[in-house]
């Protein structure tokens, strides 16, 4: 009997305790039952217009919940809610990982003001919330966070303009010889001797890619030589605007070579915009026409190796040039000469001799000198800082590195 009474007493004592505990956890989600502690919300939530943009973005910042430590994994993240100020309904707009103290709302509308609340999420649900000040977004004319970019860009652009003016006045601008360029004349001569055509592929990008423009500038030089040697040129393209520009370029080359009568629009023809459809057609042209020389100058993707290998299999001399890092290995492996990256643009300037292109290249060389100097000084200061541990050197090191970080 006493034992039965004891059991009833225990049940009678435990049941209300369990019920209280559950009720408390449901009413107050900040109570983490598993850990037995209360999850404190993030504090000091602030919202402000994202600076230096075209509007439409508000930054929300907060101080971490006191329980947000990497070692305890208590906080799973922060959920951000937004409401139109003053009487809109809150809706969840995103989450931030633990340890993060900011979130950018990139979907704000400039005509509204918003109010934000942030909750810390634990295994048992969200904490209490902290509410921000009302904030709105607006566009700014100037992004001061990019002042360093502006200054460096200004220096380089000024150099470019200076060298262009210098070249226009007849000043000589030295450019070193670029390997592969001399081979262009030999390759055209070889095709002429063999009585076979020359194939030129300007890449698969449109005229908005500077590589295509550089490729077509070199095409102009090649077309001039082809006109002089009375050889044959074949340019299949996969972009309509490239077709128009290539025709324009070749026509001008034939005109300047004194052979406008020999020009034909048929030198350039559109195939298809589809990448591998274009490759299939070009490969077909290669094995049927057996060009003696193949030029691949422009922007290339996965088709580079397919075309270069086919050209190699028919015994053509191949000269390639692209600034696509992923495709350069294939051209290097399968072609006789490859213009690597900026060499393509340099070749374009070198061959055309145009003041604008030459000046641009020289201006970029000024940029490279600045880059090398910055790396030299930065590495020296950073190394001294690591050896000495001096805070003054550390500040100087941070200053140098921040010169290349945009705000």
């Amino acid at each position, binding site marked *: 009997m006493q034992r039965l009474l004891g059991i009833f007493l225990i049940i009678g004592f435990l049941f209300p305790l369990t019920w209280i505990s559950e009720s408390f956890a449901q009413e107050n989600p900040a109570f983490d039952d598993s850990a037995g502690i209360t999850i404190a919300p993030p504090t000091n939530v602030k919202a402000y217009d994202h600076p230096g943009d075209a509007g439409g973005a508000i930054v929300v910042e907060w101080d971490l919940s006191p329980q947000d430590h990497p070692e305890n994994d208590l906080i799973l993240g922060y959920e951000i809610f937004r409401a139109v100020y003053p009487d809109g309904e809150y809706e969840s707009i995103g989450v931030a990982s633990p340890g993060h103290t900011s979130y950018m709302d990139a979907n704000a509308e400039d005509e509204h003001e918003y109010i934000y609340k942030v909750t810390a999420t634990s295994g048992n649900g969200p904490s209490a919330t902290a509410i921000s000040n009302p904030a709105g977004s607006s566009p700014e004319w100037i992004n001061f966070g*990019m002042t*360093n*970019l502006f200054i*460096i*860009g200004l220096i380089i652009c000024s150099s470019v303009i200076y060298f262009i003016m210098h070249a226009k006045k007849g000043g000589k601008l*030295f*450019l*070193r010889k*670029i390997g592969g360029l001399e081979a262009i004349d030999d390759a055209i001569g070889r095709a002429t001797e063999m009585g076979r055509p020359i194939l030129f592929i300007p890449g698969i990008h449109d*005229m*908005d*890619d*500077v590589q295509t*423009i550089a490729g077509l500038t070199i095409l102009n030089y090649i077309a001039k030589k082809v006109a002089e040697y009375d050889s044959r040129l074949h340019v299949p393209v996969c972009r309509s*605007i490239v077709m*128009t*520009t290539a025709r324009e370029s070749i026509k001008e080359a034939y005109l300047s070579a004194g052979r406008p009568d020999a020009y034909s629009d048929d030198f350039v023809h*559109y*195939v*298809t*915009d*589809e990448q591998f*459809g*274009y490759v*299939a*057609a070009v490969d*077909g042209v290669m*094995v*049927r026409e057996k060009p003696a020389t193949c030029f691949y100058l422009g922007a290339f993707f*996965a088709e580079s190796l397919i075309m270069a290998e086919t050209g190699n299999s028919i015994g053509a001399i191949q000269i390639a040039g692209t600034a696509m*890092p*992923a495709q*350069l*290995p*294939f051209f*290097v*492996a399968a072609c006789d000469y490859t213009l690597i990256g*900026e060499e393509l643009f*340099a070749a374009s300037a070198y061959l055309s001799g145009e003041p604008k292109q030459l000046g641009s*290249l*020289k201006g970029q*060389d000024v*940029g*490279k*000198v600045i*880059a*090398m100097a*910055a*790396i030299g000084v*930065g*590495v020296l200061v*950073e*190394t001294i800082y*690591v050896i000495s541990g001096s805070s003054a050197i550390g500040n100087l*090191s941070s200053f*140098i*590195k921040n010169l*290349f*970080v*945009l705000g």
Partner: protein
Amino acid sequence: METGFTLSNTIAAILTIGIISFLWKDNPLYKLCESLFVGVSAGYWFVSLYYQNLLPKLFDTLGLTQLFTSADIEPGAIQILINEGRVDNSFLYLIAGILGALMLTRLIPNLGWISRWPLAFIVGTTSGLYFTTYFQSNAMAQLRSTILPLDSIGNVVIVIGTVCGLVYFYFSKEHKGVMGGAARVGVWFLMITFGASFGYTVMSRMSLLIGRFDFIFSTWLGLTG
């Protein structure tokens, strides 16, 4: 995917074999597949460009579609002007339309030179827009990442590789003496990078080939699990 000798699988398999047959030599089946591929893709791109660009971005935005059809589309710039008396920003698309139309002057020999204007617009605008993004990602971010203390072999390799690479692409001086030596080191770095990239990409191409073989032997012929 449906397996077995279905019509679509059989056509796809024959076209796959036709394209692969180019490895043997140029042959009538390859020519057929090539012509089919070029023709279908050129037609597809024409239709795709019309429905994805010209129609929604020009005709619908300006309100021309709404003017001539009863399609249930949001009012365009013309409708806004008529109904609300307001000149909507969408009218700016008219400039793009005019520039596009100017490209067609190529077809008129005496006016062909006008087609250079839209080309100049495309090239100029793209250069301006890309300047900041390219300069940021290709120059400033790289510089920032190269400023490292010379306290480990990895950091030394990164710094030397970057500086020598820059020297190689410096065109204002002959590659002789110290410059020549540094440029040669730069080329070595480039070639090692290309080698690694080559191997990586060849492996990914192999997976594409395996995918096509898997289609032929497994999906079409049903020879493997």
